[in-house]
């Protein structure tokens, strides 16, 4: 496990990103930068706008104001699939797998954007379509192997145990060959053993040269793997820094951690 060099280029930069719903400000003027190759955490109380921020980064919402720069390119307001093509993948707070598709198919969907078979190929099942299918399947199996659930390839996603579903979601996200992976509370509902395995998996992902941005409430996980943390409260950034700095920040303790943490 190697810490990234300090002077890595910025992979994602948020500049004054704001999202309002009617009169409600879910994210207010969020600005921070994520360096290439780091594991970066976003924490904050409920309703602080973390998931909204994820949704905004991945194009599910258009920001009310501000800019999102990914690898030097302005991706503000692009459609979700465009953003996925450009190299941002994500998982969801409430697992959103394709429940009635096999694990393998779930991962193959992740590869959708990297396939080229046209309508014609599909209708007539041309050689090109067959070859591509074979290639995609092979890679999907590799990814299932990578997250450790290869044996589940032919099971419906909904029949997988909870921990495997989390892993499958990560495999699907990785299938689009992202440069940045957004994980939304990956440890929620996991037991301590699963949490440890998850932390290992995140490290392993990072070692594949993929930057990780995660939302997490579990302080053990957050403090254990992230290199830098941003704290949001009521849509505003109240602190940013290394785990140690954040943990001791009085504002963070007051608004988020409480006395016990």
């Amino acid at each position, binding site marked *: 496990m190697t810490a990234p060099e300090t002077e890595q280029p910025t992979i994602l930069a948020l500049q004054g990103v704001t999202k309002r719903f009617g009169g409600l400000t879910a994210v207010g003027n969020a600005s921070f930068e994520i360096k290439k190759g780091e594991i970066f955490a976003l924490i904050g109380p*409920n309703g602080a706008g973390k998931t909204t921020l994820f949704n905004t980064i991945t194009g599910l919402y258009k920001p009310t104001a501000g800019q999102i720069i990914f690898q030097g390119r302005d991706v503000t307001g692009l459609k979700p699939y465009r953003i996925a093509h450009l190299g941002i993948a994500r998982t969801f707070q409430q697992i959103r797998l394709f429940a009635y598709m096999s694990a393998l198919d779930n991962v193959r969907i992740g590869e959708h954007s990297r396939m080229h078979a046209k309508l014609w190929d599909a209708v007539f099942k041309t050689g090109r379509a067959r070859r591509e299918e074979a290639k995609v399947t092979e890679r999907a199996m590799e990814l299932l192997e990578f997250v450790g659930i290869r044996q589940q390839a032919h099971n419906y996603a909904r029949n997988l145990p909870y921990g495997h579903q989390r892993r499958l979601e990560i495999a699907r996200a990785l299938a689009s060959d992202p440069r940045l992976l957004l994980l939304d509370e990956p440890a929620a*509902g*996991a*037991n*301590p053993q699963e949490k440890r395995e998850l932390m290992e998996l995140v490290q392993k992902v990072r070692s594949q040269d993929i930057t990780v941005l995660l939302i997490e409430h579990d*302080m053990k996980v957050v403090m254990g793997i992230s290199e830098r943390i941003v704290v949001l409260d009521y849509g505003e950034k109240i602190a940013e820094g290394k785990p140690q700095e954040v943990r001791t920040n009085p504002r963070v303790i007051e608004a988020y951690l*409480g006395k016990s*943490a």
Partner: protein
Amino acid sequence: MALLEVDSINTFYGRVQALHGVSLSIEEGEIVTLIGSNGAGKTTTLRTISGLNPPAKGRVRFRGRDITGLAPNRVVGLGIGQVPEGRRVFHRMTVRDNLFLGAYVRNDRDDIRGDEEQMLTLFPRLKERRNQIGGTLSGGEQQMLAIGRALMSRPKLLLLDEPSLGLAPIMVDTIFQVIRDINQRGTTILLIEQNAAKALAVANRGYVLETGRVVKEGTARALLESPDVQRAYLGI
């Protein structure tokens, strides 16, 4: 006689069996917690008790009465309140209407109003927002509303399903404090938590569920000290 007795229930979702002969009992005044990993059957147990998923086999008895297979609304009427997983407040209704609906099974109009005031006192943050609609509350506030709503039916037994899920650490502390308060006012509580350490800290007794079976039970202290529990659920 136990307040609630669950006697070897089997519960299915379609063809999938979720519970395999789960038995547990709760005495009046206790806080009992169910711990276990995801998919172990904790929520299913709760849903079976409250009538949302009637068991294929086994009995559920409440204050000596067999309530197996009763419709959920009847179960509520008998004195079992439930705070469902994910809070499930009515998003398009005001805080007050939510509380009002909590008292749906009751007919004593004046007392209801009194209880409503009491809930607003118990949760001061809700008082400020009493005429706001549920959907605009934050997660913690919604959790408080869900608990307050369930209390409006004046339950003898309150079923709490993962009250701390997805809440910030500071809010988690508040919620557990509330649970303690409610219990002290005389409501028996069955608590489901994935945060086993915190749950066992407030509970009198606990059950450990794995793949739909009770694998361990005992006092909270005993469970806290059990090496198996420590390794699997307390992360020590």
